[in-house]
């Protein structure tokens, strides 16, 4: 009986794995499982207990040094001018995307004839020689913890993925970078490193997945001490799973996709899926207060964390039990979550886990306009029936998503598409320049999912929404994973861009979307950008009291002498506009150094004082000297 049910469970788990892999991976065909495994773990075939190196120490072996993601995966315009997505890792990989070129040229006034290629390789002469604290290095070496002061290793850890960082790398420009990189293998290694750092007064900057978009990984140029990048990527094991309490104790260096894959093998998941989950690490999530796409079911990181261990210059901070909730003064987890590497290194985390969902279904709804869409989301939030994920894209983003449709294989599909379009625009009278689409993801028991789906579609219908099929929904989520690759494509053709987010009360959602988009367009015009920029947004999360809004913004920088500066001015103006419209400084990207200037008005003088006094107590010598947040 017992063995029977366990094999049953395994079978179901396999099946679920196939489904959940959906939006991340190559087309679901006969050998989808193998492909899926390849995507997440470079084809290694070991099991949970064995040591796995999803991310090698030399990251540059599989990841781009001056762009997003895997080296083998990128967008390009082929000789015929058609866009192509290389590699085998994603659903879109290896496909031709016929509409992208037109959209790209039309939206940005760019041309596939005008290239702005990146420097192909890093010249090590561009990198300053390391400032080494010899005594520290000697003692570090005697501990046996691997370390390196190779130029490539150092450069890789001196940046996140802000536009200015990637732009500089593409031009081969390197500023202040860490002087040494160390790879602790476990909690105790970290304790040793931090002790040594305190003893020799060197600066430590924790490094997880390197996906920061807040300048958090930038080395402060004014830092004169030796800067040590503490790369947690080798601390990537699941130490135990507690099926009675549904928790897992995990080392903080594990990246999202690896964590999910390993848990899936045991029939569980965390359900925490930030858009960067392929590369971002558990420790990074904790340090920035990350949010996952499916937070409606599983919660954000603060809801998922049960116990955290952090190594600080004052010692290790952790709670004495693994309790679901405590009334013991201010929750010390909240000093840790969002500390952005200024207080210490998160080494181990106990997280809630859930059995893998039995059934997963995508969906989409077309609304006649954005206003109706937002009204619908608000109603869904009011009735507290939001599916695992619900996102509303505006018209520009809908068109963007449409441009990413891969080549259709049969006349029949294209005929169907045409018919659909005719039905929506002509028969239903939707204005193609105003309509917008909500993408949905349902998860759970099959029966409940179907019931839930009906409930949501019924609400949508009240706001003029029409169900628009699973395919549109799935493509919407795919966009999230490929958008960063698309930015690299843009940068090959004089187009730069970025995304940024905020959270805002419900009554402000429409106003903030309109005003921030308009502000971006106006600022670009004022700053001499020749062609009107792409300025688009989507509502990506719903809460009881508000929503999370995500903005994309990109423009063609031909004719500008300092495009990055223009870009930064526009982004700065956009953030001011967000704050003026009642939006937050950040919903989940964090503050880093990019948004530090607004912290005081965001949390008040007293709030700043509280944070500073914590920092002063925990790290009086500013060992964790990345200067983020405060």
């Amino acid at each position, binding site marked *: 009986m017992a063995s029977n049910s366990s094999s049953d469970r395994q079978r179901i788990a396999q099946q679920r794995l196939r489904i959940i892999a959906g939006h991340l991976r190559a087309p679901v065909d006969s050998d989808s499982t193998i492909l899926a495994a390849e995507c997440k773990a470079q084809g290694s075939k070991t099991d949970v207990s064995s040591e796995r190196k999803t991310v090698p120490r030399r990251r540059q072996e599989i990841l781009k040094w001056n762009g997003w993601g895997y080296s083998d995966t990128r967008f390009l315009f082929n000789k015929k001018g058609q866009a192509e997505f290389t590699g085998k890792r994603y659903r879109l990989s290896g496909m031709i995307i016929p509409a992208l070129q037109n959209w790209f040229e039309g939206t940005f006034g760019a041309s596939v004839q005008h290239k702005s290629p990146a420097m192909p390789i890093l010249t090590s002469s561009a990198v300053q020689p390391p400032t080494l604290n010899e005594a520290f290095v000697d003692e570090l070496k005697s501990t046996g913890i691997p370390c390196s002061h190779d130029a490539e290793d150092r450069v890789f850890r001196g940046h996140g993925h802000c536009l200015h960082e990637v732009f500089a790398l593409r031009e081969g420009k390197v500023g202040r970078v860490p002087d040494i990189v160390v790879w602790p293998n476990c909690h105790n290694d970290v304790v040793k490193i931090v002790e040594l750092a305190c003893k020799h007064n060197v600066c430590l900057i924790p490094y997880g997945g390197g996906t920061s978009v807040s300048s958090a990984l930038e080395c402060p140029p004014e830092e004169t001490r030796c800067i040590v990048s503490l790369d947690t990527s080798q601390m990537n094991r699941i130490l135990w799973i507690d099926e009675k309490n549904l928790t897992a104790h995990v080392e903080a260096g594990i990246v999202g996709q690896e964590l999910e894959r390993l848990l899936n093998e045991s029939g569980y998941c965390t359900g925490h899926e930030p858009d960067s989950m392929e590369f971002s690490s558990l420790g990074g999530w904790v340090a920035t207060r990350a949010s996952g796409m499916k937070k409606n079911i599983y919660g954000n990181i603060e809801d998922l964390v049960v116990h955290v261990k952090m190594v600080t210059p004052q010692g290790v901070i952790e709670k004495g039990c693994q309790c679901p909730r405590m009334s013991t003064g201010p929750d010390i987890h909240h000093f840790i979550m969002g500390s952005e590497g200024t207080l210490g290194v998160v080494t181990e985390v106990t997280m809630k886990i859930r059995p893998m969902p039995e059934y997963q279904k995508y969906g989409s709804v077309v609304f006649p306009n954005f206003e109706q869409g937002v009204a619908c989301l608000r109603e869904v939030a009011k009735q507290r029936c939001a599916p695992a994920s619900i996102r509303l894209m505006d018209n520009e983003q809908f068109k963007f998503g449409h441009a990413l449709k891969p080549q259709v294989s049969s006349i029949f599909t294209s005929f169907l598409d045409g018919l659909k379009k005719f039905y929506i625009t002509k028969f239903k009278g939707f204005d193609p320049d105003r309509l917008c689409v909500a993408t949905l993801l349902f998860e759970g028991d099959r029966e409940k999912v179907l019931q839930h789906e009906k409930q949501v579609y019924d609400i949508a219908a009240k706001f003029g929404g029409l169900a628009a099929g699973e395919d549109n929904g799935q493509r919407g989520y795919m966009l999230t994973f490929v958008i960063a690759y698309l930015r690299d494509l843009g940068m090959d053709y004089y187009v730069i861009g970025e995304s940024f987010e905020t959270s805002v009360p419900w009554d402000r959602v429409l*106003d903030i979307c309109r*005003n921030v988009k*308009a*502000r971006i367009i106006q600022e670009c015009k004022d700053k001499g950008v020749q062609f009107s920029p792409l300025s688009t947004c989507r509502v990506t999360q719903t809460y009881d009291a508000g929503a999370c809004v995500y903005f994309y913004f990109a423009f063609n920088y031909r004719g500008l002498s300092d495009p990055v500066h223009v870009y930064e001015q526009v982004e700065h103006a956009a953030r001011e506009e967000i704050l*003026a419209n*009642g939006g937050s400084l950040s919903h989940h990207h964090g503050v880093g150094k990019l948004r530090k200037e607004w912290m005081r008005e965001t949390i008040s003088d007293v709030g700043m004082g509280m944070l500073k006094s914590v920092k002063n107590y925990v790290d009086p010598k500013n060992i964790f000297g990345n200067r983020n947040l405060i």
Partner: protein
Amino acid sequence: SKCVYTYKEHRDPMLKKRDDFEDILEERRNSSDLKYALRCYTPVLYKGVTPCTSSMLKSMVLQSDQLHYVINQVSKETGKATDDIKEEASAILEEMAQCLQLSTVRFFAFTLSKAFKTLFRSICVNEDGIQRLQQAIQEHPVVLLPSHRSYMDFLLMSYILYTYDVALPVIAAGMDFMGMKFVGEMLRMSGAFFIRRSFGGDKLYWALFSEYVKTMLKNGFAPVEFFLEGTRSRTSKSLTPKLGLLNIVMDPFLKGEVFDVNVVPVSISYERVLEETLYARELLGIPKPKESTSGLFKARKILSEDYGSIHVYFGQPVSVRSLAQGKVNRCQFNLVPRHIPRRPSEDIASFVNDSAYRLVRAQEENMVLKPWVLVASLLLQYHHQNQAAGQKRGIALGELTAQAVWLRDLSRQYGAFLHWPGTVVTQVFTIILLALLEQGLYFFELLSQAVILLSCASYRNQALHVFVRPALLALAIHTASSNQKQEVFNSFSFLRNMFSNEFILCPGATVQDFEEACYLLVKTGALQFTQQEVLVTERGHRTLAFLSTMLDPFLQGYQVVCRFLCEEATETLTEKQFIPAVRKFIKKLLLAGFYLLLFLRFSFVCVCVFFFTSAFYKMHNCVLCVCVCVCVCVLSR
């Protein structure tokens, strides 16, 4: 010291570029009015417009969060049932709302064409301004702010916009018009909505009214038009702005409900206002006739008179966003739901006030001045001097011409927007003088003489905005105890404060105004600055004398009121009793043979009376005494 002369070259008013005018009546005289009234009208609308009808607007207002909140509040306070209040609200809205209809507009287009052609020689409009307006309407919600000198203003505005195929505005009009049978409804159907003159304490009315205006603005239903000055200026001098409606139309931007609001100042300059004599009589204390349809018919005799030409200048659209840049912290609305009515914070109140003054100045700047205006200024100064000297002679035509040319050049250098018809100067003056004589400039009968002189003064007033800052400086130099720069500045600052309700002087801009005045007087060679001192040049005396004489009537007006307050006023004077009492007092002075020319300044007394009434209750007596002393001392020189 802070008052060093730093007025920059690039702010030189003379370099202001202005558009050319186009006469829209010319085409009307050459083609069919009927065809014109029936032509295809397809204006460009706001790009974010939500199409809706007038009745939909009303229901949007009634269903708004703001109104719900206020209704509940009123219900709690008065104990009335919310349903009753809702009904009341609905009735108020019914009384207020416009119902813009194209057919009525077409009717007006036809009849007004006929009327305008009889009344006016030309209606000149700057077409570039129209194009800018059209662009602005497409981009953002638009507020039109015309100057207000005549009942004609808003009909004229709509007429011009119809002619150029621009979206027709909805217009805030006083309740007085609604009393006119039939005409009131016609106006309503051509876009007017009616507001009570005062509703200070009535929360429900205020909520309905502000929500109604905001809804029309936010949805881009139509440009919203109102008069910043609140009422027609009887003296052709811009009135200090009223802030209520400006507060309302800026609110959607400040609260982030729209990205921006474009405010377009419009300057309407009449060669001769239809209400000319009416105003003068009103200023002399003859009550304004109540607006009525029969009155309108009786007034049709004006159709037989010549009112010259009208110049309408559509100014540069002003973005409220850029006005507010760095002045208002919009985050202040983040912590309380936006639909709960709140008193504007200090920074917003002062921002709106500053903007209002800037906008009125923008109107003034583009007012077209006719030679008439300058000649009237000169004639009045001569008249005063003659009267004071007990003479009753005029001025030689040749001398007047020479004077006028001098004044023309001076005012051009001060940035006046002059419309000077070629070289036929003498001819023009002859005509003007004849007209003056005909109307009895030298009548001895008190009342008609006053009417004529007041009309003359109102022409002179049209040019005041050009000269007011240099004139204040000239007067300051005159009154200052020494030529020390600081002394002059202090005296300038005192005079400026005293006249802050009389002229359009932006609050808090004393230093800028001083610098501007210094710049202009230095530029025209009337003043020289040394390290410490201000020196009047040889040829500057004439300019300074002219300028300070220009302010004399105002000073005397203030002086008389001060005298009245000191000599006659009892503590219990109410506002209603105040004006007739001052009038009586002046009459007494006149009959006693004191300052015969004072009668002329009657108008200004009336205008400044409001200022002084409030001052009377609020200010300490000794402050008043200072006022009086200064006035007297200025005059005694």
